[in-house]
């Protein structure tokens, strides 16, 4: 390339397209790579076509992309997570297929397989689990504490923008250049410039840094919202359990995302500026990276799983028609887990070479976490005990979770023993363990949450039959995929291997690929459930907003909720505020008066920063310096100009609030209440007849 071209395009050239590799060297590996790229491009084209054909651009822009409404942002987070989940699951299936094609080399090249496990891990943690959790928090938490929005609505929009642009980098890496082959942990020196001069690790670094900033801002936002914006009377000990887990999760985000940022940025300094933080020579120390990464990495798993515990707590209480058992002990257990999670990071590198004393200390600290977690499991079981249990879809996910998660947790306690860890670390046993906690723990909770809160968000229930089918597929698929991995792990099969020779692994590998296909069907069944539910939405409407006889404030408002959430801020007198109101007959009362409501105006800053930060990352990855600099200045200017805006709110007049609210109250009055027996029937319009004598 000429000097001019290098200045203009950095190291970007036509060879970066996977098509170039296919033309040069046709083979299965390149076909798979190109098929992945083609699916992505086609998918994007279909979305663009549908939006144009149905003339949805205006709606998309006005109602969604520029919205600062926490509910819409939450929904967009979850849609993004589902899209990324589809890619993550497909990658998982391809990896299982590659390993099942052994003994021998399978159909993929080693480098391609390495990209697969790197993107699979990165996507599932940072762009599925995190946006799923953040999305649920966004949608549910302000409703549960009786607030009209989060503390900083515009910042909330920017968080979403940054998370999405990070995820887009992974999509771009599929079509332009390649992704990292260093796993989701990206350990140097392998990912350093000396051994990996290509663009892969740079894609990883910037995707992580930018989405990490977005997540940190979300954490700050949520913590401040719960501290400062609770409805009158909502003391800390009256918070719904989900909100308690949000506090703890936010604390973890606030203190645990910085180590990840430091690790990734120092790796960038090594790669771009020839620093020596983690290099082999001149005093660099790669163990500093492992230490930093896991200072983030361990709290990270709890920041994901705590809100999942919160969702299960809500689900168990609602569908057992009982108050949550042991509320105080659950709060204490959640706090203990949050604090303890900062004291165990070393168990991810027991084999690094430090002395036995240190390993023992961190091993014991790790085992301690099993105690508060055990408390939670017993509390959930005691919540169900003597409850009037309805085996609805969220509840089925919850029961699946209870059983499977205990197995995953026990394998964690086994791994916490350093002497055992020395035997099985870096084997598929470990892979089985963390999938065993993350799938039932986090993913099942997210799917349970989708089924539980979907009617609140969209005003109609999801199809019950397809929901049950998907529970069955997910649970069975999970068992088939990951239980065999425990066994091959114990037999010594290393994780992340693209090939293997020992024939005794074969039956397990085949069982695992069958499981992966069942999981894929599980994912498809979720999509079918969505399709069927949207098709039949007229029979499943729940406009009154309380289809499950819910206990917390989000069920006390219409479904879907108005932009201002609460026409009048609720006065909270007890835990489970809405259940108490229904008991005492104070639910659905006409308020004495209405006030004007101020809401944040729409703004395009989040969208602009999303696009610009995407361009910025791309420029840095491909060394297009002029573009990176220009975009940096542009982003700075946009933020500065935005701070000059003074009229950032719209006022909804009291008269309009009154009209809308009283129309809804009239609807409540003429809607027949339904029993729990008719919960899944079209008769359920969201007005629940309380039938929990003596249970509250």
């Amino acid at each position, binding site marked *: 390339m000429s000097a001019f071209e290098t200045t203009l395009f950095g190291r970007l050239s036509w060879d970066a397209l996977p098509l170039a590799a296919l033309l040069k060297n046709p083979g299965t590996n390149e076909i798979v790579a190109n098929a992945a790229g083609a699916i992505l491009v086609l998918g994007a084209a279909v979305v663009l076509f549908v939006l144009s054909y149905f003339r949805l651009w205006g709606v998309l822009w006005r109602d969604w992309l520029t919205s600062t409404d926490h509910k819409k942002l939450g929904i967009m987070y979850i849609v993004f997570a589902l899209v990324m989940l589809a890619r993550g699951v497909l990658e998982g299936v391809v990896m299982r297929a590659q390993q099942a094609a052994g003994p021998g080399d399978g159909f993929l090249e080693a480098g391609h397989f390495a990209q697969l496990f790197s993107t699979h891990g990165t996507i599932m943690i940072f762009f599925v689990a995190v946006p799923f959790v953040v999305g649920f928090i966004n949608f549910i938490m302000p409703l549960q504490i009786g607030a009209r929005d989060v503390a900083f609505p515009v910042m909330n929009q920017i968080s979403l923008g940054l998370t999405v642009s990070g995820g887009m980098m992974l999509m771009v890496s599929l079509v332009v250049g390649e992704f990292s082959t260093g796993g989701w942990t990206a350990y140097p020196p392998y990912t350093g410039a000396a051994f990996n001069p290509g663009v892969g690790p740079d894609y990883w670094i910037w995707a992580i840094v930018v989405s990490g900033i977005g997540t940190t801002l979300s954490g700050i936002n949520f913590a401040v919202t719960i501290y400062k914006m609770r409805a009158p009377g909502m003391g800390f000990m009256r918070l719904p359990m989900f909100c308690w887990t949000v506090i703890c999760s936010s604390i973890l985000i606030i203190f645990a995302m910085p180590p990840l940022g430091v690790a990734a940025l120092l790796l960038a300094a090594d790669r771009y500026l020839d620093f020596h933080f983690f290099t082999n020579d001149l005093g660099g120390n790669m163990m500093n990276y492992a230490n930093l990464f896991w200072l983030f990495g361990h709290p990270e798993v709890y920041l994901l799983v705590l809100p999942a515990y919160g969702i299960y707590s809500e689900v168990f209480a609602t569908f057992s028609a009982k108050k949550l058992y042991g509320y105080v002990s659950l709060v204490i257990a959640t706090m203990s887990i949050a604090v303890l999670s*900062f004291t165990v990071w070393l168990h991810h590198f027991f084999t690094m*070479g430090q002395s036995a004393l240190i390993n023992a200390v961190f091993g014991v600290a790790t085992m301690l976490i099993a105690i508060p977690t055990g408390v939670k499991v017993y509390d959930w079981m005691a919540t169900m005990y003597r409850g009037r249990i309805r085996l609805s879809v969220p509840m089925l996910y919850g029961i699946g979770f209870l059983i499977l998660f205990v197995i995953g947790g026990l394998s964690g306690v086994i791994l916490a023993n350093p002497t055992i860890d020395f035997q099985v670390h870096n084997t598929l046993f470990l892979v089985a363990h963390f999938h065993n906690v993350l799938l039932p723990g986090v993913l099942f909770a997210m799917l349970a949450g989708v089924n539980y809160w979907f009617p609140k968000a969209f005003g109609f229930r999801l199809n019950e039959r397809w929901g049950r089918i998907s529970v069955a597929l997910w649970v069975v698929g999970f068992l088939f995929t990951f239980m065999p991995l425990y066994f091959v792990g114990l037999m010594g099969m290393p994780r992340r291997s693209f090939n293997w020779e020992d024939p005794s692994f074969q039956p397990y590998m085949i069982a695992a690929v069958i499981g992966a296909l069942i999981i894929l069907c599980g994912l498809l069944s979720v999509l079918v459930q969505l399709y069927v539910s949207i098709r039949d939405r007229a029979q499943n409407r729940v406009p009154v907003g309380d289809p499950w006889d819910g206990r917390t404030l989000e069920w006390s408002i219409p479904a879907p909720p108005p932009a201002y959430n609460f026409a009048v801020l609720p006065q909270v007198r007890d835990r489970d505020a809405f259940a108490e109101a229904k008991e005492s007959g104070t639910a659905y009362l006409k308020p004495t008066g209405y006030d004007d409501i101020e809401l944040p105006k729409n703004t395009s800053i989040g969208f602009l920063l999303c696009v610009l930060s995407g361009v910025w990352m791309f420029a840095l990855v491909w060394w297009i310096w002029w573009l990176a600099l220009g975009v940096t200045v542009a982003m700075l200017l946009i933020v500065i100009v935005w701070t000059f805006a003074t009229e950032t709110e719209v006022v909804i007049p009291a008269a309009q609030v009154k009209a809308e609210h009283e129309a809804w109250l009239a609807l409540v009055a003429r809607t027949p209440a339904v029993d729990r027996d008719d919960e899944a029937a079209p008769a359920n319009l969201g007005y629940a007849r309380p039938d929990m004598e003596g249970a509250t």
Partner: protein
Amino acid sequence: MDDKHAEHARERSRYIRGFLFALALTLTAFGIGHLYGPQTPYVYLAIGVLGLLQLIVQLAYFLHIDRRRDSREDLDLILFSTMVLLIIILGTVWILGDLHMRMQMGMQM
């Protein structure tokens, strides 16, 4: 208005006192560092203690963090952050220091 005036004088003298305290602590730290050299036994310890004192002086005089009822929320936040920071920093130094020592032992053998 006189009330306001007195209050202003009080607040201003608070900033100035804080400044003078901090300046004195800085001067002492640099003074003993310069006179004895920080590698002299106990001198670095003294500099460390002076630094800690200055942190407290600045928090109290410039940021008005104290144990009054309405500062509690910030104090809680700062104390919790300090706890996490101490876990992170001491843990890191412990782990990597130990590793470092063992690596050197290996080289000598």
